[in-house]
């Protein structure tokens, strides 16, 4: 559904993307993780034909991204900072336009407004909305027409945990219905929770690529275990050494130290800087 081969992009002397490659299968949630300035939005902009790459290829919907036609965009949903809204129009009018344009029933719009707790505010002018409300309005707009491919640039930033969970549920439902989702985030727990595969990006380079569990397992093998004794003391040993403590009468617990994606990201980012 999406394929990127050796993509590079520079802005002046600054490297935005350096020889990155990945592919995304149909019906997959792909997480593109990295700190601000890592190159996440640049990748979305190249994939959606808004920006030209310096070298490499980007394919989407079986064609090169710079060959996308207006009709292709009817199958794509985009929520990023390159899109806007009509501030003086109400939330409902803003969304009603996209519903009409994509021939979607207004009932579906109402359902989404209720689901994302915007129904009560639908007659507010869009410019009067809080950041989180604007995020939700833009999210509704991007998913309203049930696109084949959905690009989401940090969709839950500015949302409280309860609403973030609702967004996750909506995205998982869309995935189950066949939508391919390209999601950028710097929230590692979000990526672990909903992404099938992820790519860790920093300073334009892909540092890791695979399923969240694969990446966690890869780094967990190098990890140590913590032995807690009944007297309250604890020590950290290698996993091989920890096996010797199992079943010991003075041992309260033995457990491995599972790295979170966040720990791994910090580690590989530091490693990449030192290379």
């Amino acid at each position, binding site marked *: 559904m999406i394929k990127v081969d050796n993509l590079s992009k520079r802005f002046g002397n600054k490297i935005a993307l350096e020889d990155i490659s990945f592919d995304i299968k149909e019906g997959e949630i792909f997480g593109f993780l990295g700190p601000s300035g890592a190159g996440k939005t640049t990748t979305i902009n190249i994939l959606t034909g808004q*920006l030209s790459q310096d070298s490499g290829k980007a394919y989407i919907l079986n064609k090169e991204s710079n060959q996308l036609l207006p009709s292709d965009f009817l199958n*794509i949903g985009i929520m990023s900072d390159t899109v806007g809204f009509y501030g003086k129009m109400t939330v409902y009018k803003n969304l009603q336009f996209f519903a009409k344009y994509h021939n979607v029933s207004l009932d579906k719009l109402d359902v989404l407004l209720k689901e994302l707790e915007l129904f009560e505010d639908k007659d507010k002018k869009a410019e009067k909305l809080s950041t989180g409300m604007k995020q939700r309005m833009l999210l509704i707009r991007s998913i309203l027409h049930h696109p084949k491919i959905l690009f989401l640039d940090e969709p839950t930033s500015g949302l409280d945990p309860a609403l973030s969970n609702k967004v996750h549920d909506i995205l998982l439902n869309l995935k189950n219905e066949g939508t391919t989702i390209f999601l950028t985030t710097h929230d590692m727990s979000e990526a672990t929770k909903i992404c099938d595969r992820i790519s860790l990006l920093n300073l334009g380079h892909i540092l890791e690529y695979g399923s969240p569990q694969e990446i966690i397992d890869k780094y967990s093998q190098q990890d140590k275990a913590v032995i807690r004794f009944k007297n309250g003391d604890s020590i950290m040993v290698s996993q091989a050494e920890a096996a010797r403590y199992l079943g010991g009468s003075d041992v309260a617990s033995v457990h491995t130290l599972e790295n979170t994606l966040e720990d791994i990201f910090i580690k590989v980012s530091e490693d990449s800087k030192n290379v």
Partner: protein
Amino acid sequence: MYRLMTLLWLRWEYLISNRVLLVVCVATPFVDFAILQAIPMIHGELDFLNMGLSLVYSMTAGSFTSMMISEEKEKKNLRTLILSGVTKYNYIISVISFPFIFSVLSALFMPVIFGVSIPNWLTYFVVVVLTTLAFILLNLSIGLFSKTQTHATLFSMIVLIIATFLPMLSSDMSNKIMSYITRFSFIGANTEYFIKLEKFQISESSVFALICWVVVLIFISNFAFKWNSREH
């Protein structure tokens, strides 16, 4: 077709939620002309209708378009529409429709309301329609190429100044160069209409030049829309 109708619906909703734009661009030329018509020696005089028309072309057709588009561009709505699958023809038609309707109606009603006698209504109508289109397309290009609303406003002011002063300068028929420039400018057919009156014909070279302006500006607007689909 329903996508074009939806874009027209959006444009209408945009206009009624931005009434200031409507009032400034549609009412101002009328109010200015009404004030001018309050002077007894000017009231009903055909010569002064040209001044009112220059305002209609510059504001109701021109500034209206450039302000609307540059705001849309600055607030990333143009990019949003492009990324939603809006085609350039649907976009351009939807954008020019309301300025075109308001401008043509203003130009047609102005002489009727203020009792100005028009010698040949059909010729007048053709000149008004073509000149309006040229002003709209020129300002559409300005709006699409300008980075900010401020830039668009400044560039459309230049068009307004040209539209206001070029006919005045060319009225001095001894200045052949200025007369020649005016005839082939986007305000040329309108200016010549008010000089020749009954003798003015659709086949005048100034009308042909105006058609060329419209065709070239359609190509430029198309390119400008495409140019905006990418970051620069």
